């Protein structure tokens, strides 16, 4: 079988697809200046509309997705993305960020309502919808914490951000980007933050503590209010990484637990699609004492009019251009209003129910659960002795199902992090178990089988070392004379 061609290999000089209006006669050189212009055309694909359609339709067939496959990636909340969200987003897609605000009142109202809805859901006093993703929300949050301490003359003194060793990589990376040192605290045998270690790590040099609750082991930090008290006593602020909010929607609120700042991942909890890697959306919410530091712009209501507040003197400033990933704000708002108060509470209920059901079934078929107690929306497992997580994951692909998150969190060897989400049926969870059983059985019979898996995928075990050692990061056009193929 030949390689699947890249679009440039389908290109033929002079072939055309869609055509824009033909530009009128005009002296471009005269207007732009010859030496400001490019001397040779970029080598972009020249294909017919049909060849383009075939190319990207066939590529879509070489891709797993929620819509075609069970996709229980831990920490990613790969739940169903309702189609009505897409319908809703289309209704706003032609809005220009600089059109007169009076011609965009519906959009501004939606943002205003969403700011309030997210506040109500998290128990925070104010929200900014600007950040483009979780990590971006983290940066906004930690920068607000920084501004807060500086406003109180403690900017110099507080140099450290505490993160658990089970934290997602973006947490320490964010702290560093905000100019902080990172101090890690270890995970106790309970799978929770080690309180003693935490107290030891705490001090007057600490600016903030970044926590995920439930944490990345899928366990709820039962001592959360104590941790908050310890942090606050030391003058540090508590940051909530909202990636796991799906577990506690409507059950307990970060604000009530004592968190001062939270970011949410609308592309997880609130069903905006992942798009193969993004765009996400990571709004940040704060307690009243941090309100004045929120990134601009914020939507406010003046009488019946919705207005954008651009310059708040104490604000950390802009995190990005315009008003955030507005298209996703429409999707998230549509989702929140579809479910309403009780519907959102059901989400956490069934997410946790599914996770615990699947955890039990994992145990039945021989997987180990390192921290085995009632989990929240996800759990971490380990494969039966002698099997590698990677091999099991690869073998699953032949069953048309996506593996769990592998080798994260780092605190568990051979970690398999499984998050089924509330939108999956028990039949699907059972089918996953059957697939895993089949894989384990095959591995029994034939130890070589796992090493070779997968067998039925478009490509098999690509050589990642080669990719990194001899990086080929763009298509190389054949030198003239050379053959394209």
């Amino acid at each position, binding site marked *: 079988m030949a390689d699947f061609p*890249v679009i*440039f290999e389908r290109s033929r000089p002079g072939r055309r*697809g869609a055509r*824009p209006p033909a*530009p009128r006669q*005009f002296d471009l050189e005269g207007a732009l*200046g010859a030496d*400001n212009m*490019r001397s040779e*055309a970029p080598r*972009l*694909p020249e294909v017919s509309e049909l060849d383009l359609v075939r190319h990207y339709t066939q590529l879509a067939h070489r891709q797993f*997705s*929620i819509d075609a496959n069970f996709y229980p990636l831990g920490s990613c909340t790969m739940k169903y*993305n*309702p189609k009505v969200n*897409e319908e809703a987003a289309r209704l*706003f*897609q032609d*809005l220009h*960020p*600089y059109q*007169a605000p009076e011609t965009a009142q*519906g959009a501004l*109202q*939606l943002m205003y309502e969403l700011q309030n809805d997210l506040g109500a859901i998290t128990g925070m006093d104010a929200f900014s919808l600007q950040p483009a*993703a979780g990590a971006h929300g983290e940066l906004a949050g930690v920068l607000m914490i920084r501004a807060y301490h500086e406003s109180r003359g403690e900017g110099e003194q507080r140099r450290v951000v505490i993160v658990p060793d089970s934290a997602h990589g*973006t947490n*320490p990376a*964010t702290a*560093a980007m905000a100019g902080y040192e990172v101090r890690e605290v270890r995970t106790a045998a309970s799978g929770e933050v080690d309180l003693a270690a935490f107290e030891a790590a705490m001090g007057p040099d600490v600016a903030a503590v970044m926590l995920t609750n439930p944490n990345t082991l899928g366990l709820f930090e039962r001592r959360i209010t104590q941790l908050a008290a310890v942090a606050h006593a030391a003058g540090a602020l508590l940051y909530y990484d909202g990636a796991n909010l799906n577990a*506690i929607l409507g059950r307990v609120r970060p604000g009530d637990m004592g968190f001062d700042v939270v970011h949410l991942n609308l592309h997880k909890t609130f069903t905006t699609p992942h*798009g*193969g*890697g993004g*765009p996400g959306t990571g709004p940040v919410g704060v307690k009243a004492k941090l309100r004045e530091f929120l990134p601009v712009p914020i939507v406010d209501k003046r009488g019946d009019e919705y207005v954008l507040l651009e310059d708040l003197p104490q604000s950390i*400033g*802009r*995190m*990005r*251009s315009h008003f955030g*990933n*507005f*298209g996703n704000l429409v999707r998230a708002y549509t989702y929140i209003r579809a479910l*309403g108060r009780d519907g959102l509470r059901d*989400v956490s209920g069934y997410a946790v129910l599914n996770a*615990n*059901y699947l955890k*039990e079934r994992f145990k039945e078929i021989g997987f180990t659960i390192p921290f085995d107690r*009632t989990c929240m929306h996800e759990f971490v497992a380990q494969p039966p002795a002698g099997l590698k997580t990677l091999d099991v994951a690869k073998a699953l692909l032949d069953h048309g199902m996506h*593996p769990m998150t592998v080798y994260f969190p780092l605190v568990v060897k051979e970690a398999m992090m499984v998050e089924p989400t509330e939108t999956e049926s028990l039949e699907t969870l059972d089918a996953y178990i059957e697939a895993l059983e089949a894989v384990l059985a095959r591995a029994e019979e034939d130890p070589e089988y796992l090493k070779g898996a*997968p067998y039925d995928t478009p490509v*098999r*075990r*690509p*050589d*990642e070392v080669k*990719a990194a050692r001899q990086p080929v*990061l*763009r298509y190389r056009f054949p030198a003239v004379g050379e053959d394209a193929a």
Partner: protein
Amino acid sequence: MRYHPHTEEDVRLALETIGVSSMRELFEDLPQELRDPEVDLPPGMDEATLLDHIRELADKNSTRGPDFLGGGVRRHFIPSVTPHLALQSEFVTAYTPYQPEVSQGILQATFEYQTVMCELTGLDVSNASMYDGATATAEAALLAVRQTGRDRVVVSRGVHPETRAVLRTYLSPLGVTLDTVDLDPVTTPKLTLEDDVAGVVVQQPNFLGYIEEMRSLTQSAHDAGALMIAVVDPLSLALLAPPGAYGADVAVGDGQTLGNPASFGGPSFGFMVVRSELLRQFPGRIVGETTDVDGKRAFVLTLQAREQHIRRSRAKSNICTNHQLAALMATVNVGALGPQGLRDLAAGSVERAHALAARLEAAGMAPATGSRFFSEFVLPVPVDPQRVRSELAGRGIHAGVPVPPDYGLGDAVLLSATERVSDADIETLVEALQQIGAAREVAHG
């Protein structure tokens, strides 16, 4: 509405398997006193009622009518085939391609994207996308700081004001100084820089629409041992010299004009392309080509040692989720239009903008056409530019991005054109400007 599939029977079976008697029991780890808060949200809606509500909101916006809005976001023609292909649900509902065997769709499309961006910018290596043009610019400045070990960044006032604001947000916590300089092709064609400057950030065409002297400015940057960071409109690169051609080290910008809807400003995507020498300091995801066990070409995420999930606090950036789908839209759109189609879009926009400027002059207004401009230019107005924009909006015309005060141009608006502007649109705008007094007074003053 509800999206979970559970029947009562399912719940019974699940609870039994888990060995608990109720769903509440699953939440006993939660602090008793904080459980089940009052959440102030309305009840849910069925889909029909929901869509009526959303449509009501949508109807409070208006988007049709002549369009002269720019400021970095433009509503160019996007062929129907582009969203049709890019928004296939296999792409839309996939996660980051961590399992290459079942993610060749996204991975290959991203490899194609990286190639497109390299071709447009004339530089060596593109990442898989950033959030937007502003954050990509800020990340580029941080790259310059890491690469040079210096702690001063110089930015031209011609860089989009929002981008400059984001630069401030990203640089200040790290103690990096940000100097803003005024450029003028005539008075300030080049810069004299101290040797503590890590990078120079210049936008082409600049925020007001005018052409900068990128060659000499790049020379100035390199003379001081600083990196040259070119902020570019990717569509303009169908006509303008690519950053690689004038020696820029980094090209960044916002991809909206390559085929993403305006969407009230987001999501689009940011791009970042660099010389290979900068690869080690390069932030963000990168897709690379390799071979699989059968010797077949395959694509994978590569060089991940730069990223947060491996390097954690020593990562080149904290970025994780990027703007893949928007980058895919651009890739498909570039494929749909081809080099000629892109060129036609750019050339058409330039021609229409110059036609508009000429018509305004003829009508007694004084657009600032002294220096070369691309598809956007400044029109001084005798009244508050916000009011001008509103008055035009009242007449069903979308035009008049206010020029911020820090440009020192007094009351002025930006007028931008795309290939879709008709002669009739131009007449409508000119007439409206005259009615609201923009013309006359300027003509006198």
